[in-house]
């Protein structure tokens, strides 16, 4: 044992620089900083996206040598067209807004799941698996019981949350009891969930009668999340009650994290598990609790898919939401409102992307590119600082260390 392994003298260094974890997740940053970088990241990603549109316009590129004016005009048309349809497809009509909400709902719920994990210092990569299991629970309740809608929908949602919570709590328990790292275990749990879904969709419990493929029985109409604009009787306006569930969940997470002793404990464990133990908290059960709550939120996301849109189960019902949720939580700085905002943004990108695909010859992959670029810029805040010459928290924060006895 060496003496003083923790030098604690002079100006504390901990305040000088945000750690990588803080930089990435936004946990612990002052709010203006927390918003500035994501906003600039989104903007930068859109700009780079525009450049990519331009340089992949092969026809225009060919013209560049002979007739640069026309070429540039064509490129501009492509960019303008893409972003115009992205906008119109996400906000240009009732249907567009409805699609944005439909796409945003599970993203918000799953994003909250990842964010609450970040707040408690846990990397929940398992949202995808929790989403799948939650969805399967909701699905089962959706087709197997026959009760009125005001009971059926809440019961199915509850089942979904429960399924996700169980799936989330397992890695939590493994970490708390054995120290197994949650990144590894949640990834593995994703694979298990994926295979279980494949298996159960082909089992007699789930599989629709008379079908050979892994498609489940449809859920009862009473289990379907009611349409928000059902009175319009428009089949293309799919927005449903799920978005309300998502917003309530966001408020719930906000309340839990910042207004309750439970949230105080979650955050304490996230910042400093040893300090949490010192403060008399049960770190073991907190980790399990955080993972269960995170799992429940992801389970709700899966339920939203089943009960709100698909009304049945198929192997790919979860899409890649559980993974997009990680991006989302990073962009949303792990704050519930941030997650809602980025969920709406990603929902709008997806909804608008569909419309862009219909109306232009730009590939849907552009959306993936923009999303990926957002992550790159978020993950490299130094890049944003350098580009925009913003002075973020670092220098300002360390000032307060100048106060002394």
């Amino acid at each position, binding site marked *: 044992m060496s003496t003083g392994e923790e030098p604690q003298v002079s100006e504390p260094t901990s305040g000088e620089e945000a750690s990588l974890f803080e930089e990435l997740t936004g946990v612990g940053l002052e709010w203006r900083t927390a918003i500035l970088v994501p906003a600039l990241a989104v903007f930068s990603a859109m700009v780079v996206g525009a450049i990519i549109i331009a340089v992949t316009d092969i026809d225009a590129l060919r013209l560049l040598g002979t007739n640069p004016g026309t070429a540039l005009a064509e490129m501009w048309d492509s960019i303008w067209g893409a972003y115009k349809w992205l906008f119109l497809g996400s906000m240009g009509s009732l249907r567009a807004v409805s699609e944005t909400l439909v796409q945003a709902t599970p993203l918000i719920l799953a994003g909250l799941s990842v964010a609450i994990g970040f707040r408690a210092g846990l990397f929940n990569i398992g949202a995808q698996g929790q989403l799948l299991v939650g969805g399967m629970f909701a699905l089962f309740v959706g087709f197997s019981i026959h009760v009125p809608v005001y009971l059926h929908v809440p019961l199915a949602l509850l089942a979904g949350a429960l399924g996700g919570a169980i799936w989330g709590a397992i890695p939590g328990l493994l970490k708390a009891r054995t120290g197994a790292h949650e990144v590894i275990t949640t990834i593995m749990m994703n694979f298990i969930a994926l295979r279980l879904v494949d298996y159960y969709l082909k089992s007699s419990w789930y599989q629709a009668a008379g079908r050979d493929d892994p498609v489940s029985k449809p859920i009862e109409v009473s289990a379907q999340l009611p349409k928000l604009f059902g009175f319009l009787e428009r089949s293309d306006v*799919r927005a449903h009650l799920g978005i309300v569930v998502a917003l309530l969940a966001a408020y719930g997470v906000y309340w839990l994290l910042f207004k309750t002793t439970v949230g105080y404990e979650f955050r304490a464990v996230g910042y400093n598990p040893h300090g949490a133990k010192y403060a008399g908290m049960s770190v073991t059960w907190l980790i399990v609790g955080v993972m269960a709550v995170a799992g429940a939120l992801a389970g709700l996301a899966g339920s939203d898919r089943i009960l709100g849109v698909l009304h049945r189960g198929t192997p790919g019902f979860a899409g890649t939401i559980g993974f997009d949720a990680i991006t989302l939580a990073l962009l949303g700085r792990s704050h519930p409102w941030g997650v809602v905002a980025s969920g709406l943004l990603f929902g709008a990108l997806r909804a608008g992307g*569909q419309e862009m695909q219909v109306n232009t010859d730009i590939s*849907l992959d552009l959306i993936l*590119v923009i999303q990926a670029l957002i992550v*790159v810029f978020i993950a490299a805040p130094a890049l944003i600082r350098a580009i925009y010459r913003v002075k973020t928290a670092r220098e300002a924060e360390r000032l307060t260390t100048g106060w002394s006895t």
Partner: protein
Amino acid sequence: MLKRRLSVVALLAAIALVVAACGDDTTESTAATTTTQAATTTAAATTTTAGETTTTEAMGPAALVCQVSDTGGIDDKSFNETAWNGMLQAQEQFGVEPQFLESTDATDYRPNIDSFIAQGCDVIITVGFLLADDTAAAAADNPEQLFAIIDYPVIIPGVGPIAPFTETSTNARGLNFNTNEAAFLAGYLAAGMTATGVIGTFGGINIPPVTTFMDGFARGAAYYDSVKGTTTTVLGWDVEAQDGLFTGNFDSLDDGRAFAQNLMDEGADIILPVAGPVGLGSGAAIQDANAGGASVMMIGVDADMFFSAPDLQDVLLTSIQKKIDAAVLNTISNVLVLGALGNEYFGTLANGGVDLAPFHNFESAVPAELAAELVQLKADIIAGNVSVSG
């Protein structure tokens, strides 16, 4: 309206995602991108000259034919892409304007179909069983719109509608393939060619479009045994239990390697992987084994892999062809010429919708006698003298 930029954008997306170390399915798209061009050129090469195209273009506004791909994407080197090749052939032959929409996940199917309905497509082709429910619902909501769905039956003559389709789903056509007929031939061939008496197969997921290959293969081998009095062991598919060996995915080349290696360890010297690109991994594993002195062959699926996977020419005994492009072309032709979808499509040996590809490099290795028997067997299957389903 060809989405030429796809490749570049997809590639950039892949790079960006890899940089971001995001847990997304990017390897697939890079792999797919590189092959898109090859596939398109071969498709173009097999069709008619440009001269004909110009004459048909003069005939007034082009018909709009539309394809909704599943989440695999248009360049999946599997059924989405083969179907799209059929669309491109229709463009060459009839001057139609092909369009596609890709789906990022299951909730996109219906909006994509609806977008095409709004655009006034002459026929909308949906790809795969995952789109069955949405196709059936859209067909019911829009009785005037024509649909065709690949690998899913709509109304089977003599049997009736297959859920979720109904009696009224007459505006939809299922494009089905009796792949087991061609697979039966492949099984017969394999049983005749194996030196070890052990042949093997594995699939992607246990769904009918996959298992029909495996079932036909196993039954064909059994038929050979019953005729010749030999004993051939078929690994990977149990005809009685209707179950077998599955990778659980259609994209892991590593799984393809591992599964082929396992089968080879069990003595199999002819392997039939039925899992799209996964088979490429198997082919590579077989090449490695052969380089080490083994003598193992592979049977390709869907397209004649001698052309679509030229790297594997030295191990490809033959391929079980499932001509989705022909079915798509047939459907579009019906719509343009007859003004109707036509009856449910079943690709068979008789109509050339399924077939056994040439032996290519193994032409001389296959005994003339066995080749002749295969010709006779094909004729017997077409004539109904031999049943491929037991």
